[in-house]
């Protein structure tokens, strides 16, 4: 049973460019949340997708957008990259409408470096 998988594992981009990160949720999960984790900080909630729609959003600008596909996988897009966007981007999946006693399952993230 595969857990949450994210790709790529590492990425280097230049300021002003655009980036797309991908996430496949754990089998049986239909809800995907994205987090940004700067060095030395806890994960910060970006947004959550369920039924291909953005359901919740954290305090992030519109440069951060996402998408969920019918197979529940998800993408995070960041436009006009800034140096401050350098971080570990984590994807977490959950059953959403399913069992309430199931914790969030995280992938190992994508390390994005903006130069």
């Amino acid at each position, binding site marked *: 049973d595969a857990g949450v998988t994210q790709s790529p594992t590492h990425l280097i981009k230049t300021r002003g460019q655009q980036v797309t990160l991908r996430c496949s949720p754990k089998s049986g999960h239909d*809800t995907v949340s994205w987090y940004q984790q700067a060095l030395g900080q*806890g994960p910060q909630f970006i947004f959550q997708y369920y039924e291909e729609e953005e359901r919740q959003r954290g305090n992030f600008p519109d440069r951060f957008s996402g998408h969920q596909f019918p197979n529940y996988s998800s993408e995070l897009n960041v436009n006009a990259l800034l140096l401050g966007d350098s971080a570990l981007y984590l994807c977490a999946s*959950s059953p959403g409408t399913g069992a*309430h006693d199931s*914790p969030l399952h*995280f992938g190992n993230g994508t390390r994005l470096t903006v130069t």
Partner: protein
Amino acid sequence: LAKTTQPISMDSYEGQEVNITCSHNNIATNDYITWYQQFPSQGPRFIIQGYKTKVTNEVASLFIPADRKSSTLSLPRVSLSDTAVYYCLVGDRRALAGGYQKVTFGIGTKLQVIP
């Protein structure tokens, strides 16, 4: 989720028992307490969840006093591989499972195990 307070860092020698306390004065009646562990460059991993008294699994124990305003994560006989950041989260079960709500993390407690 309820506001939580935990120490920023702790050091412990190998083989010792480690107790990390989390304060959550505004815990609600339906709230549960959940702990996650995060190793460098990995996503957080669920450790344990409890509502009251004591919960134990193969990894840790969670002690919750009667007033539930604090909780203590206990790691028995730590090893170097227990060096990680530990996060305490408090909320209703559905919220903690990522059910249509933002699951936010604080800065956590950085545990350093010393040989």
